[in-house]
């Protein structure tokens, strides 16, 4: 028996399916907000990295390579950093994490955190090297590492928000 979906159900499904993308989109825009916290803006954590890491583990089908590319591109355009830098970092994160998803699924937060520390460190070093190549000048590595560290510190918050949103995905309308 084929059950026709109502318009409301279709909308609900569409929203649920775009939820990972929307979360990453908001995270990218958050990186362009003014915090008024001394020195934070020059070491703004890469919120998108945590979000991409989460969805790459938990919902890789709803957050594909294309999504990572688009979010990275938008982040680069809004924040004014060299074009392609965030795009490549998010793309590589998505590509590196999804094949290892089985290692993380069903494990406690600490396990995810360790994984994210490794990814953050790799992303910080790679983005620093790429920025130096693109800009032709070397950005202070300390700030880049501090930014990565702050990203690691706020990861449990990002993880908690994403877990709540993921529950919405599995709940019946």
């Amino acid at each position: 028996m084929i059950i026709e979906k109502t318009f409301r159900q279709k909308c609900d499904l569409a929203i649920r399916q775009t939820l990972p993308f929307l979360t990453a989109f908001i995270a990218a825009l958050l990186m362009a907000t003014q915090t008024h916290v001394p020195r934070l803006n020059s070491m703004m954590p890469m919120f998108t990295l945590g979000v991409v890491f989460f969805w790459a583990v938990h919902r890789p089908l709803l957050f594909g390579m294309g999504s990572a590319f688009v979010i990275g591109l938008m982040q680069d355009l809004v924040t004014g950093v060299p074009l392609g830098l965030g795009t490549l970092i998010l793309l590589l994160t998505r590509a590196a994490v999804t094949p290892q998803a089985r290692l993380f699924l069903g494990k406690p937060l600490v396990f995810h955190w360790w994984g994210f520390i490794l990814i953050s460190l790799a992303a910080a070093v790679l983005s620093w090297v790429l920025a130096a190549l693109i800009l032709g000048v070397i950005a202070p590595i300390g700030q880049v590492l501090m930014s990565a560290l702050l990203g690691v510190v706020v990861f449990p918050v990002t993880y908690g928000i994403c877990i709540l949103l993921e529950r919405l995905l599995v709940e019946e309308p």
Partner: protein
Amino acid sequence: MKPSAVSGRWQTARLVFQRFAFVALVVAAFALMLLGKADTILVERARTIVVDAMAPVIRALSQPAGAISEIAENVRDLANLRAENARLREDNEQLLRWRDMARRLEAENAELQGLTDYVPLPDSRSFTIRVMGDTGGAFAHSVLIAAGSQAKVRKGMAVLSGDGLVGRVAQVGQRASRVVLITDITSRIPVVIENTRTRAILAGNNTEKPRLIYVPAGARVSPGDRVVTSGHAGAFPPGIPVGVVSSVDDTVIRVQPFMDRDRLEIVRLVDYGLSGILGSLDEESRAAQAEALKAAREKGKAQRLKDSQQPNPDGAPQLQTPADAAEP
């Protein structure tokens, strides 16, 4: 054919496609990096369009942080009210003395300008705008302001806070614009040390303390010296306060800017009508500049003609006016 074989082939094809997509997207990301270097105008336009479209969302997301910061500021102000009041009284007395001196100097300046036939800089136009976003993190120092071409913001405008120079407008959208801060790694500003008139370039390095480069050998620079714009290259008019020299060692001279990036809420945009090194002001400004230059040249020629008819009795050298200097 067995269903499992079909499904296996389908999965293989999907895997190949995914791998190909990944490689294609990585190549596209590198292509974007090259594009960013090769076609800056196109990239700038894309940034402007995206920032313009996202401006309302960024503004909305920035509001909670702004509100919290305002509350914290109010609490701090209340705690320091008595001390602040005493300090302001003292400042006021000092400023009144400065005002009297400024009036005297203004009158003297006007008189001297009249005597030397000085051609002043074009009048400036300014307006005040709210900062709505701070972008870039460790790789770029820039802020987004909540005004664009609709509010007659133009590329190259100087951006000032109450403390001093903040940066310059680098991209202009319809409703939002991007300001590159003086601490940004791409920022280079011609400056002078106020008391010694030593010329240098203030080079941003994405830290809170930019460096002074191209300082002439043997120049005396000490911590605490004020740094102001020099007016060279036509980027900014001379005399805008930039910062103070914070440290001097054998290789590096660092400057602590007067502006505080974390406290930037409202900035003043000033159009001095200078295209300078940016060379991207609109046609109207270019025409006005050309007109002013032409008038100055004609005035200079008339003055020289007048001077040649009246020989200098002392044989002393004549003062060179900017109009003369502008002659090719």
